[in-house]
């Protein structure tokens, strides 16, 4: 069964766990904001506590800490989600963005629910219906673009495309291996560039590799070089030069 968004082949377990924790936290916080708002709307939509004046309408018990905790917690868990999602790779880095439609659709529902049927009676409350429509639009419209955005992070050319989107410079002269997200565990590393010329050697020695693939990749490249020599595509001298270049390449040098 295949559905969902691809993850990096070696997505760190820590990132996977943290992404699940972030999703739990964000749902927790959106629920607190949703319920806190309902409590405030239940007393008319506005309230105040504290200060030197006597409040006409004090806030329902627990609504203030619920709203504060929900809003700031959402920012914190959202940040955690971005970080963990970048480690998981692909479009998972965008998972916290779903909190936006989650928040605005649920708050819009509150507005519409109280706008069309206020608990104190009286029929229709335009003051709630209008923001309700706006909130639902703010939550729903980004969802229409979510699928397209997801595709931006997929495919073999995702790295250069996403970099171009954000105006980041292309890596001049060097080919780029697509990495799954910008995360310390998924850095793209580049061995020292070969001084030898020729596309075969460039392919074998100068292409960047991901840190996790480095050792297996080195063996693969050495074997490929040996095959090329056996096939007569490169001379012994070229083989030795390329082999020395590969073996003398410094171990992971981060590009980021």
């Amino acid at each position: 069964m295949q559905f969902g968004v691809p993850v990096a082949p070696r997505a760190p377990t820590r990132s996977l766990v943290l992404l699940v924790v972030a999703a739990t936290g964000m749902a927790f916080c959106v629920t607190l904001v949703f319920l806190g708002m309902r409590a405030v709307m239940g007393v008319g939509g506005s309230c105040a506590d504290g200060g030197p004046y006597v409040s006409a309408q004090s806030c329902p018990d627990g609504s203030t800490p619920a709203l504060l905790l929900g809003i700031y917690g959402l920012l914190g868990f959202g940040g955690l989600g971005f970080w963990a999602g970048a480690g998981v790779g692909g479009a998972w880095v965008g998972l916290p963005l779903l909190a936006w439609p989650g928040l605005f659709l649920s708050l819009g529902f509150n507005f519409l629910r109280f706008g069309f049927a206020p608990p104190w009676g009286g029929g229709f409350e335009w003051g709630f219906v209008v923001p309700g429509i706006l909130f639902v639009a703010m939550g729903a419209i980004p969802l229409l673009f979510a699928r397209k955005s997801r595709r931006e992070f997929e495919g073999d050319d995702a790295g250069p495309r996403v970099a171009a989107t954000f105006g980041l410079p292309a890596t001049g002269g060097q080919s780029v291996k697509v990495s799954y997200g910008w995360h310390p565990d998924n850095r793209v590393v580049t061995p020292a560039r070969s001084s030898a010329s020729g596309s075969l050697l460039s392919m074998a020695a100068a292409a960047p590799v991901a840190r996790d693939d480095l050792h297996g990749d080195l063996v693969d490249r050495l074997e490929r070089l040996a095959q090329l020599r056996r096939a007569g595509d490169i001379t012994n001298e070229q083989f030795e030069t390329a082999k020395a270049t590969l073996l003398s390449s410094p171990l992971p040098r981060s590009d980021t």
Partner: protein
Amino acid sequence: MTRPGWLVVAIAIAIIIGIVAGSWFFGILTGPTPVAPLG
């Protein structure tokens, strides 16, 4: 089930757990709801 599929299910379960936990915690913040006397 592939890993992405597994992760989608895990995220869905996490969201449900978050909603249930948020509702429970909100109940703690607001205190016990007065219960109308029977009859």
